[in-house]
């Protein structure tokens, strides 16, 4: 079993098996959910690292032919399902594994807990892994639905009544979106007779002998793209299909919000990126120039509208939720630029690298922001931006993490938020899409507006009443947390140390993850150039240069 091609299947099967084990073990040991999840997700992390080292190392693109039905002949179609790990999916897998562990640390003390919760959580991870690794458009639907069901469940795991309403709304909108995706898959199947991504790309290009030529302008293929894109835009919460998202983020338990904000919409945006690049391929957009223009327009609207709506919110979680509408708009925008017929080789390359970096960067930053918000809510019951008044002194570590991550969100160098935007703007300008650069600038200003409000409340507004234990040895604590964050979110986070934690509200795990996210956001900013280099072969391959 030293063949890395087994890693993709293990990455998907392990959390699912663990979910079944959790439920079974829960019959006897009701508290076994957390330890079993921990073991499974640590192993998952190891597998993700193994996969990444193989993909970014010498192996390149890995294919696991499930059932070994393979391809009947040279250059013939796959009759089974294939799992495919390339640089993009390996990146997603690493991100999911890292955040999955962090969320486990975050929810350790603050909840939610319980046997069914951990089973649902593990299923979410299994679903996300499946979406990241599959090379088959229908299989992607199945895993998208596992992810969906697990997410609706986790939102509803909150005790509050509005959580159930938010979950139902999410379910109805999300399922309609998934059905539209399936409709698009049906049109593709009708036009080509296959579901394998690579074979679809070849058929659309007119390669097999039984098609007459390129099919890019076939009405079925165009309609298919429209349905698939709409369905995935619902999942990624692109304006105006984002309506489910703020409620779901706001009403979900805080720990769950961290997971879904960092991973679930991210996987929708990933799926869009994947299908655009690996199924329809840039040649499709070349043949139908209007499509890329529509994508860029829709995404631009989302970028601006999301930021504008974020500025108008008073609740912290809703502000960050709308901010995600804008940020995923940016990822889709970058995808649109990368496949835009007007974009030259260098512009497309920059935009695509920007899309991937922003996708990863946003997950880390937004997950960190929601963790910090959760910590502040536990510390001082802060739910609205006004509640943050004076917390810069009361909860210095969490406030600093939130402030730092907020700056990253704006795009202040050298953090990862800057890097992603930088590549995207370079791509837009090289492609002569000046309005897009203006849109990004406008959204940056709006982002600055709401982040500035956070700053103002945290550091420049006095707390409404007297702050008692405000300035208690801030230097010491930050040292502690920084050390813990370096060591990752290890097993004992938030157990014994909690007692000695100087901030009695937020458990250690929450603080550590918030600080860790802030540090990681900065480190990723520095490591971005190397990451871009590592992506280079993948980018040139999918862009077909």
């Amino acid at each position, binding site marked *: *079993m030293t*063949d890395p091609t*087994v890693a993709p*299947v*293990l990455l998907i*099967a392990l959390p*699912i*098996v663990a*979910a*079944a*084990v959790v*439920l*079974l073990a*829960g*019959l006897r040991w*009701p*508290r076994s959910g957390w330890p079993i999840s921990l073991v499974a997700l640590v192993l998952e992390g190891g597998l993700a690292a193994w996969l990444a080292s193989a993909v970014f190392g010498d192996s390149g693109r890995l294919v*696991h*032919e*499930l*059932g*070994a039905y393979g391809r009947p002949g040279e250059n013939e179609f796959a009759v089974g399902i294939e799992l495919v790990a390339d640089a993009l999916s390996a990146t997603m897998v690493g991100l999911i594994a890292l955040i999955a562990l962090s969320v486990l640390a975050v929810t350790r003390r*603050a*909840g*939610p*807990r*319980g*046997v069914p*919760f951990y089973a649902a959580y593990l299923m979410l991870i299994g679903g996300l892994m499946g979406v990241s690794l599959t090379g088959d458009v229908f299989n992607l639907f199945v895993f998208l639905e596992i992810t969906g069901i697990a997410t609706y469940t986790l939102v509803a*795991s*909150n*005790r*509050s*009544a*509005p*959580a159930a309403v938010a979950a139902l709304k999410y379910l109805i909108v999300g399922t309609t979106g998934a059905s539209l995706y399936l409709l698009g898959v049906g049109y593709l199947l009708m036009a080509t007779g296959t579901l394998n991504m690579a074979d679809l790309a070849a058929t659309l290009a007119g390669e097999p002998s039984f098609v007459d030529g390129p099919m890019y302008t076939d009405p079925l293929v165009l309609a298919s793209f429209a349905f698939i894109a709409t369905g995935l835009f619902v999942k990624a919460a692109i304006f105006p299909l984002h309506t489910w998202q703020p409620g779901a983020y706001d*009403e979900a*338990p*805080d*720990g769950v919000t961290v997971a879904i904000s960092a991973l679930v919409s991210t996987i929708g945006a990933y799926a869009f990126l994947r299908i655009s690049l690996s199924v329809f391929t840039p040649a499709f957009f070349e043949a139908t120039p209007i499509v890329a223009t529509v994508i860029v327009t829709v995404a631009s609207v989302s970028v601006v509208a999301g930021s504008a709506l974020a500025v108008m919110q008073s609740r912290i979680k809703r502000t960050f939720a709308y901010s995600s509408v804008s940020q995923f708009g940016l990822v889709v925008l970058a995808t649109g630029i990368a496949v835009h017929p007007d974009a030259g080789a260098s512009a497309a390359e920059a935009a695509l690298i920007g899309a991937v970096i922003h996708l990863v960067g946003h997950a880390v930053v937004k997950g960190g922001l929601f963790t910090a918000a*959760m910590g502040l*809510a*536990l510390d001082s*019951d802060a*739910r609205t931006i006004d509640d943050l008044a004076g917390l810069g002194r009361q909860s210095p570590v969490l406030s600093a993490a939130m402030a730092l991550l907020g700056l990253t969100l704006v795009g202040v160098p050298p953090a990862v938020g800057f890097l992603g935007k930088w590549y995207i703007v370079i791509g837009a300008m090289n492609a002569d899409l000046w309005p897009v650069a203006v849109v990004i600038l406008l959204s940056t200003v709006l982002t600055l507006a709401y982040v500035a409000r956070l700053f103002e409340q945290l550091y420049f507004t006095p707390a409404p009443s007297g702050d008692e234990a405000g300035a208690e040895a801030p230097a010491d604590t930050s040292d502690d947390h920084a050390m813990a964050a370096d060591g990752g979110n290890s097993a004992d986070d938030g157990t014994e140390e909690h007692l000695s934690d100087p901030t009695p509200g937020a458990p250690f795990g929450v603080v550590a993850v918030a600080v860790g996210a802030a540090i990681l956001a900065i480190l990723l900013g520095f490591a971005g150039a190397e990451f871009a280099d590592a992506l280079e072969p993948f980018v040139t391959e999918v862009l077909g240069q």
Partner: protein
Amino acid sequence: MTEDPTEGTEANGETSSREANDEPSSTDSQLPTETDAMGPGGTYVESQVIMTTVRVVAPFTFTYGLFLTFHGGGSPGGGFQGGAVVGTTILMIAFAFGIEPTRDWLSNRTVVGLASGGVLAFALIGLLPLLVGGRFLEHAVYSDEFGLYHGKKYALEGVEIVGIAPIVSAIVIGLFFTIAAGFVGQGAAWQSSGPGSYPEHDLDGGDEE
């Protein structure tokens, strides 16, 4: 009835597991026969005709479900259809004999065991070929490497019989009983006040935000 959702979630795991362990009965179940767990409206009627019919029919539908499961290879049918029919048989019994007695008769261990066991069995059938360098769900390994007679066919049918069918039947049953038990949470206060009664929203007034 917590003001703050976070506070609620903080206690969430603890309280719900304690509730489940120490006091498993829902509000409805304390009155097993008078108002059935079908809830407001009390739709359960003890009918000798229905009970006898179900007693006669149930073994047949159960067998038919198993037949569908086992014969998916050569004719229409398979684990999903068979599992659903087996699960529905139990629901039929619940309709005839009352949900509460049926719930008592079917232990949670059985249902969870079937569901989780099905997932594990499916995964195991899929993963075993990896041990000898095969691929996930490579059924041919069972005949070629493990030397089982008709191994690839039995592995494929095994997926349906020990994987899918138990999961589907257990979950159909589980869904039915969890939904029938209803939600024992904040709203339960008014729910127990009698079948068909309308809630007083003021009870929860000002809870949120």
